[in-house]
């Protein structure tokens, strides 16, 4: 079920809200778990079995690790937890990819044709964070299966993150505050997130579809596509995170931020501190630092960065363009650390940001390609290769048609609107203006959902 759908917004959400706030606190996690399973099973009922199995294994391993913490058995159970969780992820996400590559090497194996369960990358990483944190002593094992199930399957962040680490919400699972203040902030977050997804990301998605169907490709159109996709994935992903954080607040949880205006970054490393922060943090704490982090010799550092970013690429999808995408960032981060970092710090902001934005656009084009040949064609088109004309009548038309939306998206991707709102917040009129804007956004989003607007789901491969 998508947040940006009528069934979620006007059927599922009111049902869960009514029941959640009707029952006493000791049943609230059970309500969340039950509705989360309905939410997950809505699209793919068959994968409820997988989800249930993952929850049960994570819970049992967590208990065993907690019980034997400090002994060899704990390590054994942690290994079992990691192997089974990654085994399931590997089978469901990477089996076809692995067989395709083995066949390319000369084998003749039948493709298993495994469908990817939605959200498996997210909840697998959550379960891993739990068992590792319990092993490390950063968290106590969760005795209640219901509480653990609610943590793993919690519908606000189940299918598109942020990746919530157990240690961050362990206490809130046992006891959390529900208040009008928190709920009102949650509602604001949810409505703004929904608007980011439906009013901006989905509309930009239409421009991307038009580019793909274009009969008159041009250099201008490729750049418009690159900009539109970078902004679409930002508004889509950050919109989902906004909605998740907002829903979390309504249910009393304080989830961590996942985006912080990444396109204003002055460096690639800063970009990754602002983009999908929960994933970056996960890889930092559970892969990069255990490998030695940056307190190692340069060659080892390069290996660590390559390993982390190849894995980050693979996490996003089982295809070589994702691996290349990850390795591109590994190369950029290494270059920044050893060659460019100091010089970049001295340059004026715009002189650094412009080339960084260009590199990011190229990276997103690579990310969104369905094959390496398409990636090469798109990136080549951006660079004026491939004999494309500079402009075409079609690209000029769509520039006129989507220009304002692109400008609005660019402005919205910077802190300008937030800063303006913060300034206005001090005035009395804001108290009246804010609910009016939120109501208008809710009506506009509903209109787009009713009108059957383009509503892609970008996270099916994550």
């Amino acid at each position: 079920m998508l947040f940006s759908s009528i069934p979620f917004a006007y059927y599922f959400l009111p049902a869960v809200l009514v029941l959640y706030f009707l029952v006493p606190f000791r049943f609230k996690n059970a309500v969340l778990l039950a509705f989360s399973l309905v939410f997950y099973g809505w699209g793919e009922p068959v994968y409820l079995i997988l989800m249930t199995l993952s929850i049960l294994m994570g819970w049992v391993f967590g208990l065993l690790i907690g019980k034997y913490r400090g002994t060899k058995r704990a390590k054994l159970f942690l290994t079992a937890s990691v192997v089974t969780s990654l085994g399931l992820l590997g089978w469901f996400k990477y089996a076809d990819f692995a067989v395709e590559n083995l066949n390319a090497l000369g084998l003749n194996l039948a493709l298993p044709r495994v469908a990817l369960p939605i959200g498996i990358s997210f909840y697998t990483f959550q379960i891993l964070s739990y068992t590792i944190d319990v092993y490390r002593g950063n968290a106590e094992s969760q005795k209640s299966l219901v509480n653990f199930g609610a943590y793993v399957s919690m519908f606000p962040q189940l299918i598109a993150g942020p990746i919530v680490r157990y240690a961050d919400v362990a206490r809130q699972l046992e006891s959390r505050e529900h208040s009008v203040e928190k709920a009102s902030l949650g509602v604001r977050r949810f409505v703004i997130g929904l608007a980011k997804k439906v009013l901006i990301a989905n509309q930009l998605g239409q421009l991307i579809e038009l580019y793909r169907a274009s009969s008159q490709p041009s250099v201008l159109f490729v750049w418009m596509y690159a900009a539109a996709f970078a902004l679409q994935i930002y508004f889509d992903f950050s919109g989902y995170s906004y909605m998740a954080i907002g829903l979390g607040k309504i249910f009393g949880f304080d989830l961590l931020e996942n985006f912080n205006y990444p396109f204003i970054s002055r460096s690639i490393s800063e970009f990754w501190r602002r983009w999908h922060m929960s994933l970056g943090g996960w890889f930092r704490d559970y892969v990069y630092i255990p490998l030695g982090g940056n307190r190692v010799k340069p060659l080892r550092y390069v290996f660590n960065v390559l390993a982390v970013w190849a894995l980050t690429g693979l996490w996003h999808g089982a295809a070589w363009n994702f691996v290349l995408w990850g390795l591109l960032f590994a190369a950029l981060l290494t270059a920044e650390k050893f060659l460019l970092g100091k010089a970049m710090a001295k340059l004026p902001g715009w002189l650094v940001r412009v080339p960084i934005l260009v590199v990011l656009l190229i990276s997103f084009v690579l990310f969104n390609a369905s094959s390496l040949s398409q990636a090469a064609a798109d990136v080549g088109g951006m660079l004026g290769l491939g004999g494309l004309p500079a402009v075409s009548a079609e690209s000029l038309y769509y520039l006129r048609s989507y220009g304002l939306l692109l400008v609005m998206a660019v402005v919205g991707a910077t802190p300008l609107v937030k800063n303006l709102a913060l300034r206005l917040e001090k005035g009395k009129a804001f108290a009246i203006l804010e609910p009016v804007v939120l109501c208008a956004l809710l009506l506009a989003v509903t209109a787009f959902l009713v009108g059957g607007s383009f509503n892609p789901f970008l996270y099916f491969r994550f």
Partner: protein
Amino acid sequence: MNAKKTAYLRLLPVAILFCGLCLFAWLKPADDFSLTERRPLAQMPELKGDEVLSGDFMTDFEDYATDQFPLREPFRKLKSFIQFNLLGQKDVNDIYIAQGSAAKIEDPFNEKWVQQNAQKLQAVFESHFQAGGSKAFFALIPDKGFYLADKYGYPGMDHKAMWEAVEQNTGFAQWIDLTGRLDITDYYTTDSHWRQECIGEAAQALADALGVDISQVYTENLAREDFAGVYAGQSALPLPAEPMYYLTSEVLNGATVFDFETNKTTGIYDLEELWGRDPYDLFLSGAAALQVIENPACDTGRELVIFRDSFGSSMAPLLVPGYSKVTLVDLRYFSSMLLPQFVPAQGQDVLFLLSPGILNSVNLIK
């Protein structure tokens, strides 16, 4: 203002709006049909175990919830308003407005498809009609995009290339150029079709090529004052409704139309359709695979076969005075394999009267 009061002020209006819409959505009885979109609306699916397990129930419920949402039409209009007026998009659902008239962005010209379709039509004529002494005529209908797209910078079909390709690939037929006989004001502003009362010159061009006399004294009848065509419904843009007229004459009043699918004989105009899903179905009762118009006022015995699309419904009546019998074949719904059975070759004039969208498509012509 304290934090709690601010929170209530923020929360309450949104909560009231949200709860109101939720209640409305849950309690509103389901509608059957959307007149503006001209389609049936999804209904509540039956809750069955196998449907739930397969996920079909969920998919159907999503369609139902979206289709049956309260205030559907105002919400559709709001969406179009935002896209068109606030986001500055030049088209809504591929429909744009130029010179006060709505038109649709067409698919790009595809030479291969046009060639294939032209070859199909040639095969239809040569295999079935040519031996009987028939002569073929071909007229490509300029749609609204022909007059608006290039002029106002909208993308889509390369009309020049399209016209050249069709003319080159229909050498088996006498080419009739209609482009100079029409302009954008001859079409409904809210619909894709031409206005019957405005296509007399185009009809005369066809008649001149066919070599028949179609002169008539017509009466212009107001069918509806508030016609809102297909583009008004699809785009949900605030396009003003417009009058719809139809032409009658003694000859047309005496003509009958037999529909092979319904086995019914009616008149040229079906006034009941004026208040149905598509008022344009007034003309020859709308889309039909095979129809025959008998004209008792013409005793020449001359017959015409028109391979047509929906534009033909309002044009064919104007050609009726020149013929004793006019057969209308829509190859989108009628397989040409059945022609010998239903339309015996008897030296009829054969007119291919089609719009670009039909020829620029794959597998539409059977």
